[in-house]
Structure formats: C-alpha cells, structure tokens
C-alpha cells in the first residue's frame, strides 16, 4: 500500500515500532527517545515486578534501554521490538538478582524481605491480594531463574511458550523452572491455586 502522510515527525498515533527502529538504527535520536517513551512504562513495570522493590528499578530500566538501543542491529524483526525489549529486561534483571544473591551470601549486602503490601496496589481485591502476597513472599529465596519464571507466568500472565521465549530457553526448561517456584508456593498454607 502506498500512502503519503504529512509531517515526517512522529504523530500522536506514532510511527510503527519498525519505523522507529529503522530510524534509530540510522542514528536518529528522536527515534531512540520515541522508543523509550513508548516502552518506558512497560519496562518500568516489568522491572518492578521482577525485582519486587522500587530500589534498583531505575538502574535496571536504564541498563535495559542502553543495551537495546546499542544493539538494535541485532534485532532481526524491527516490528518485534517490544517483545525483544522484554527479553532484555528479564535477562538484565537476572544478572542483578544473581549479583544481589551472591553479595547476600557473602554477607556483603543485607536485604530486607519484600514487603508485598507495599508492592501491590491498595485497590487490589482480596483474592488478588492473597495471591500476590504469596508470590512475593517466596521470591527472594528462589533461584533467579525460577523467580523470573514465576513472575512472568503468574504475575505477567504469560503463557508458558511466552515465558520460554522471553527467557530465551526451551519450553521444557521454562516449565522446570516454574515447577520449582510452584512447589515453593504450594508449601504455603494460604496460597491460591495457580492457573496454567
């Protein structure tokens, strides 16, 4: 389809992700910022839910966008920028969680447990509240891979194929990781039954 549109600058409805990626690859700073503005809330939200705390969210978001914008040439499908960015968030969060866990084990860092009530919205209905409390209460002791699988599947609502794709692993590996987390959840007496 051929169509001419006025004003080469982005409109409120905006150019497509693919168009922004193409322009950003060419060094157009407005396109880089447009990609950031378009996905900042998504990335901030995902980072927050993966980390379970507001501390470190800003650093994680910045690391994610810097990596993404520096490596746009690796993105084979420009239209899939959003899901690709999500994978980078998860990978970057894993690195942070791994480092944090190591520092904690070495006694170099002490982290207060996640306060689930401060993490979630006050308008959450009771069943949601209990489920989120259960999930966030088991996150810290979990290995970062199991933790991410649990957040992506239960909190983000991703299907297992999506979880696997986002984590960059096979479906069976994603399921194994989730199974570890689900077993931790089921050990809690007040846990709500997970939905596949």
């Amino acid at each position, binding site marked *: 389809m051929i169509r*001419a549109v006025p004003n080469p600058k982005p409109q409120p409805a905006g150019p497509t992700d693919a168009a922004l990626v193409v322009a950003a690859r060419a060094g157009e700073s407005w396109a880089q910022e447009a990609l950031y503005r378009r996905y900042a809330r998504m990335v901030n939200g995902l980072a*927050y839910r993966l980390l379970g705390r507001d501390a470190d969210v*800003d650093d994680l978001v*910045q690391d994610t966008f810097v990596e993404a914008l520096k490596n746009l040439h690796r993105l084979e499908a420009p239209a899939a920028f959003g899901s690709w960015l999500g994978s980078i968030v998860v990978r970057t969060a894993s690195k942070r969680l791994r480092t944090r866990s190591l520092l904690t084990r070495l006694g170099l860092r002490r982290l207060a447990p996640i306060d689930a009530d401060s993490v979630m919205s006050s308008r959450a209905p009771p069943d949601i509240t209990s489920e989120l409390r259960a999930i966030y209460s088991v996150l810290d002791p979990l290995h970062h891979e199991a933790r991410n699988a649990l957040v992506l599947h239960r909190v983000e609502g991703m299907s297992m194929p999506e979880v696997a794709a986002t984590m960059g692993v096979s479906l069976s590996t994603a399921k194994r990781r989730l199974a570890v987390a689900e077993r931790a959840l089921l050990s809690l007496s007040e846990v709500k039954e997970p939905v596949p």
Partner: protein
Amino acid sequence: MNEPRKLSSYVEPELTGARLDAQWSRIGERLPVSNRKPRWQFAAAAGFAFAATAAVLWLQYGPARHSAWESSVVRSDEAPVELTLAEGSRVELSPRSQVEFLHSAEGSVQLRLSEGSARFSVSERAARRFSVRSGPIEVVATDTQFRIVRSLAAEGEHVRVEVQAGSADVRRRDGEATAITLVQGEHWSTFVAYEKAAPALDEVTRMKRATSARAATTDQADVPVEDDTARATSESDAREVTPEVTPEVINGQPAARRPQRGRVVQASPAHQLFDRANIARRAGQVPEAAALYAELVQRFPRDQTAALAAFELGRIRMDTLSDLRGAVQAFDQALTLDSGRAFAEDALARLALAHDKLGDAASCKRAKERYLKRYPEGVHANVLARRCP
C-alpha cells in the same frame, strides 16, 4: 467483575514525568555519540571500489567539495560521510550506510542506496533526471532534498522516503505501475517480505559486505540481494555496477531466507492476523484481540500460528472475557491443531479447569485424566489433582 484479573495490573511502580525524564537523560548520556545525533563529519580514510572489484573502500576527504567518481561504492563507518557529485548534488550518508554511483551523465544521474540511510540534496538542473534506487523502489527528483532509509531484516526489507524540500516521485520497481509524488513534509514507507523458498542459483546476485562492525548473526540475515542487473539491459541510459561479489553459496545452493531478485511478496494473511492480534492483546484491547485470533483459527486452521492463536483465544476468553464455554471450544481447537504438542499441557490443564468452573464434573474429570496420564509429573498436576475428584 469489571476489575482486571491480571495480577500485574496491581503491581505498578510510581512513575512521574520527572522520573521518566531523568531516566531518559541518564540513558542518553550512556549512548554512543554516533547513536545520539548524527553529525556531518568527514571520513578519516576513504577509497573507491569500481565495477569489477570485490572490495569496498573508504572515501577520503579534503577541504571543501570533492566529487565522487562514477561506478564507485561508498560506505560509511561509525561516522557519517558527506560527498558531492560532479553535477552539484550532495549525498549525506548516515553512519553504517552504503551508496553506489551507477551512472552520471549530463542528462541523468543514478545512484543506489544499498544499506542504511542517506539524504540527497539534488541541485537544480534543467532536463536532468536524478534518481535513487533502494530495494524495491526508485525515487526520481529535481531540485529536491529527500532522505531514504533502508533497513534489512530476516523477514524482509523496510524502505522509507522523506521529502524535506521540493518534490519527488516514488515508484516501485517490481512491475507495479503505481507511482506517487511526495512533496515537502511528506513521507512514504514500505515493507517487503522475503519469499520463504530459496531462489534458484542462476537468478540470484549476491553482494557481500567487505567490512562490517555488526555481529555475525545479523550479517548472515541482512546480506542484501540486488535485483537490478536484469533490468539494466532494458534501461538505455543506465549502466549497472556489478555488485562486489563473493557469492554466498552453500553446497551449490543459495543460503536460505534470501530475497528473490525482482519478486516482491507480502507477509501471509495468517501471520498478519497473528501479529495484529498480539499487538491488540498487549495493548489491552482484549475483545479485538479475541476477534482476530478467532478469525485466524477459522480462516487458516492449517497455518502454523493457528494452534497458538486458539490457545491464546482460550486464555483470553477464560481469564478476561468470562466466556468459559468459548474457552472450552478454543482449548479443544488448540489441542486438535497442536500437532507438535507445544501447548497441549497448558491447554489440557486449562480445559479441565474451565469444565470445573462450568460445573461439568464429567468433562472436567475426563480432561484431568487425559492430563495426568500424559503428564503425571507435569507443572499443573498438583492443581488438577484437587479438582473434580
């Protein structure tokens, strides 16, 4: 009932405009300079590649304006490159871009943008045709300033034309007669998908990058295939540059996922529907997403995306639309279409839960037994064990 069921809706950070601005400010500080803003600079070293050569050289600049030689190939590295043609027009190459000078004569100038983006400032000359080819399109201009951006990806190529001054005609070179005239402030873009089948060896012309700073993975996917040489014989005033070649042939056949010369195809309707449905779902437009998934499954049941579309439809109906009967139907379809068993475990578990919520104990039990027989230690085994006893 109107409250969203997705847990993530209730776990959101506090985001103010100031916080977002501060994040972007720090991100911008960490990006490489060439990424942040293109600055027109002169290349540090340069050379020329001629028609029969296999190497791309850098163009070296001195002061003021120098003309680029005809039949040469110019490629920019991390810095942009600016050059002037003998007839006065200017080309400003963005970083990591490449332009070829196909023909330069009194009556016509022809270039080809084979990679990246460039701005072309066409000097006013009466009775002179200035054209730039890029992928499937050609831009013809007089006394114009326009930019072309070409991006190659695994599935196809994207070309965008922006006119910054004057006017330019844009036409497709794949046989379609449609042409449009863009004026100042207008832009046009197209995405051309590659065909899946590998082209015949004798129809393919290869161009290989002599130097590249990119990762090997993208190199393999993004090597452009030029489709021009066949047409050169039909255009009396054009002389084609033979692309630098090191033919990429594996076992006598071209590598997979290369574009066919002179042929343009669109993404399949099923894939277009699937992409639109995913976009709608992620944007929170759930009813629209459900309708698109349903349309895909109905119209293209044999497409490779149909099984996943049915599964996603089932999830949407179950979790958000409170349509349990519709969810059952969709999960049944997903199980029928999912010959690879990729979603069978999740679909079976959800099928059992949906029946349970409908109060259909017999169907719940049947689905549960199917699941437990197939996946005795599956992820959902513990959950299902407590349902419809």
